[in-house]
């Protein structure tokens, strides 16, 4: 009679566990990691180290790997963690969930097991009401597993992202390719920083495009940051490398609460709340036709001159930015007279509407800085749908119930005044500088409509037009608006910071009630 083989002891078992864990942590192996580095990209795990506060990352699914869909042998060593590192950790002391696609494992392709892991993260993010972060560097769906009509059961990730929208912040950091349908991950996310040169996103990758339409292109030419951060507006920030990208993710999160029931953390500042900003008088020319850089104005108003712009290189005629006022996170929507005179077009309206919806969803108060000559008019913009895009901005600003403060620096013309939170849009405070020009249109436009017959009948029509324009100009005066109590006050520009801070404080307990509805029908 032979003795049964002795069961392994706990020491042996834990040693075997360590081997498995080390194998998974080694990702696609040193050769592929070397390739990743030579492309100026960090690995998924190096990126997570930069995202999380040191030592706070807890991983789920380290020991997962691909399984054969065709009954063949599984090869765990080929697909450590099934190509996506998933887990939770702290960012500035607050917990977030993160999925980092690992390009060293089957080009970061999205396999079935990996997607189970990410789905679990999304559910945890919703259960615990905490942000969800994707670090994308992936060839897309793993076609070996996905081709064929079992596709019929797929796609729930986007449905879930839509349910998450406005409940928890979602960030999709673009650190490599993100081709095909997975490009809807950034498409639905709240914040999408892109690394220059290495990242790209497109609904069809270059090979698919060639097969579908015959067009010859590359992933980068079609969907790099030079497209999405400048032209399409899908990207929110172009950064030089992975480290800058992850720093941007951390910074973005710092301005938002963990979910829509909380407010963003307040940050201590030594910047005095009543600091006078005397430089503003020099920065903003009194001549209303002269341009200036509104970013300089914002920097001087904000706590510690610290401003975090969203989409700084897209639709630059409007500025959307986070900053803090007396430590409180605030969303700023400001005209940029330096670009297109600060006039609004379709991209500017989209950019602002999206930002206002983001801030309102996450209880971030809004400050509007107006120097807006109006919406661009003419045949070109009508073809582009300026009416529906402009209406979208009206819609977002009207819907926003967070504290709203409006400052009219100079121009506030026509619908531009409306969409930048004019009196009718329930700003909690609306103040103007003495240089403010609030009117449905400028004097020259107005005389041609009001006095067309008089001008035509005059001996010298040009002189008559100039004289009449002068009369109209006199009616464009902020003190008239103030005398009708249509603006709350006219302020010394140097007091703007103090006024913004006091106004935001005054509106903190605001709880507007709106008629019940399932949802509005926003123009898009």
């Amino acid at each position, binding site marked *: 009679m032979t003795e049964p083989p002795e069961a392994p002891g706990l020491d042996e078992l834990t040693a075997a566990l360590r081997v498995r864990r080390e194998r998974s942590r080694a990702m696609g192996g040193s050769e592929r990691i070397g390739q990743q580095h030579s492309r100026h990209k960090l690995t998924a795990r190096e990126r997570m180290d930069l995202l999380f506060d040191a030592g706070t990352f807890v991983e789920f699914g380290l020991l997962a790997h691909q399984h054969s869909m065709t009954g063949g042998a599984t090869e765990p060593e080929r697909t450590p963690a099934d190509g996506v590192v998933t887990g939770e950790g702290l960012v500035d002391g607050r917990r977030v969930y993160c999925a980092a696609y690992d390009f060293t494992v089957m080009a970061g392709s999205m396999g079935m097991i990996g997607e189970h892991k990410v789905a679990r993260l999304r559910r945890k993010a919703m259960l615990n009401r905490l942000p969800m972060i994707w670090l994308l560097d992936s060839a897309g769906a793993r076609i070996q597993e996905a081709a064929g009509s079992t596709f019929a059961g797929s796609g729930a990730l986007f449905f879930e992202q839509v349910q998450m929208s406005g409940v928890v912040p979602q960030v999709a950091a673009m650190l490599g390719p993100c081709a095909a349908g997975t490009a809807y991950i950034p498409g639905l996310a709240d914040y999408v920083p892109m690394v220059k040169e290495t990242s790209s996103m497109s609904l069809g990758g270059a090979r698919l495009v060639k097969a579908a339409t015959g067009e010859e292109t590359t992933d980068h030419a079609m969907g790099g940051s030079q497209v999405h951060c400048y032209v399409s507006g899908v990207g929110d920030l172009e950064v030089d490398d992975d480290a800058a990208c992850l720093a941007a993710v951390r910074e973005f999160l710092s301005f938002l609460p963990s979910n829509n029931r909380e407010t963003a953390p307040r940050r201590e500042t030594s910047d005095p709340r009543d600091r006078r900003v005397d430089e503003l008088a020099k920065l903003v020319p009194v001549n209303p036709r*002269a*341009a200036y850089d509104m970013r300089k104005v914002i920097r001087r108003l904000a706590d510690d001159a610290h401003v975090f712009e969203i989409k700084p290189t897209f639709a630059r005629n409007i500025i959307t930015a986070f900053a803090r006022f007396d430590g409180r996170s605030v969303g700023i929507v400001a005209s940029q*007279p330096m670009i*297109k*005179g600060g*006039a609004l077009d379709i991209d500017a309206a989209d950019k602002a509407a999206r930002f206002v919806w983001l801030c309102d969803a996450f209880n971030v108060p809004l400050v509007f800085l107006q120097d807006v000559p109006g919406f*661009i008019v*003419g045949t*070109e913009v009508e073809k582009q749908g300026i009416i529906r895009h402009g209406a979208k901005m009206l819609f977002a600003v009207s819907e926003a119930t967070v504290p709203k403060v409006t400052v009219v620096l100079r121009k506030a013309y026509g619908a531009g005044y409306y969409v930048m939170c004019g009196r009718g849009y329930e700003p909690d405070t609306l103040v103007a500088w003495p240089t403010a020009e609030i009117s449905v249109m400028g004097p020259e436009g107005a005389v041609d409509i009001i006095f067309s017959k008089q001008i035509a009948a005059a001996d010298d029509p040009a002189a008559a037009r100039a004289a009449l324009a002068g009369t109209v100009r006199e009616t464009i005066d902020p003190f008239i608006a103030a005398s009708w109590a249509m603006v709350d006050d006219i302020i010394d520009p140097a007091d703007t910071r103090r006024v913004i801070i006091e106004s935001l404080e005054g509106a903190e307990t605001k709880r507007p009630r709106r008629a019940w509805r399932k949802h509005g029908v926003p123009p898009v």
Partner: protein
Amino acid sequence: MAEVKAELVGNLWKIVVEVGQAVEEDDTLMILESMKMEIPITTPISGTVTQILVAEGQVVQEGQTVAVVE
């Protein structure tokens, strides 16, 4: 070579450079009058102005090439 284009429709108010003139990136070539503002049209590259394709007082369209810098 760069084709300098108007960013929006407007009245071309002033041309401040001449053909043959050397310019630096971001220099103003012309000033457009539009939407109650004086809007500078700047060159995206440094080089020499080789062509001016518009005249003062002319209405230019969004995207219209107004000058060439090489």
